């Protein structure tokens, strides 16, 4: 089962995982990212960053095993690098994680991105993905760590034409 969903442009960050796993039960991490899953040194680096069990999968592989994830008794964090990949999982694949909350963590400043908070910048493409996830019934909160939440998607969507 999935107990926590997060977008983090560093994908897996040891200290942050340790922090969030005090808020939500966590037996392991499922990171979905095509580049990391197909670059062994990246996958190994993520696995070394935490003492939790870590899976680094392509979106294609996640699609194949999604039912196995849901039917497992183990409690997993689901993490993607960006909102667009999360939208593919939650909207396009219609994956039903059984929870409604999605936390947006670090998203670096990039050209064309709108800065919502410290280290939280969103491009129009990502905003479109978040809007689609929101329409699907998910609550999207921007928080690097639990204590530093800057608000939920409805507060920011007007910056992107919604």
């Amino acid at each position, binding site marked *: 089962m999935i107990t926590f969903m997060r977008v983090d442009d560093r994908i897996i960050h040891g200290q942050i995982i340790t922090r969030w796993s005090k808020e939500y039960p966590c037996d392991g991490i499922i990171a979905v990212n095509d580049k990391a899953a197909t670059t062994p*040194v*990246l996958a190994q680096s*993520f696995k070394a960053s935490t003492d939790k069990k870590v899976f680094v999968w392509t979106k294609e592989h996640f699609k194949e095993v999604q039912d196995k994830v849901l039917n497992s008794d183990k409690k997993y964090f689901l993490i993607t690098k960006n909102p667009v990949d999360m939208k593919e999982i939650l909207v396009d694949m219609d994956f039903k994680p059984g929870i409604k909350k999605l936390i947006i963590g670090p998203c670096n*400043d990039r050209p064309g991105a709108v800065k919502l908070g410290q280290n939280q910048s969103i491009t129009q493409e990502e905003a479109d993905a978040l809007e689609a996830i929101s329409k699907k019934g998910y609550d999207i909160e921007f928080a690097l760590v639990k204590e530093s939440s800057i608000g939920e998607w409805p507060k920011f969507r007007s910056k992107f034409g919604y």
Partner: protein
Amino acid sequence: MKYVVMVSHGEFAPGLHSAVNMMTGDRPDVLDTSLKADMSADEFAENFRELVKDIKKDDQIILLADILSGSPFTNALSVLDEKGMLPNTLVIAGMNMPLAITAVLMKDNFDDLNLLKDTLLSEGRAGLTEFAAVADEDEDDL
């Protein structure tokens, strides 16, 4: 040629590099770059790629990083992987001053990176220590 390349968050790698320079002198085979606040990981990777562009496949790299699996660590490895340099790279996380000085001063005494590794880890670990002041009661005991 063997290079020592330091990477970190913030000013740690450039700072450590400048501290090491005070002990070893400025050398062309010691390099650094770091991920600054509000810099994207891609920008860091680009800077790192530029930093190591003249390092050739038959060179060796001792990569020192501030923290295991942090973004600087991961992105530096990713670039070295693209360059096909990983087999010639010794990667150590949790860098500190004793480790970095030893790396710079001792690297050319070792042909085998594996042997150098043991020395560096041992110096780095020994450098992290508590200093406990002990009252010396025998001070006047001539």
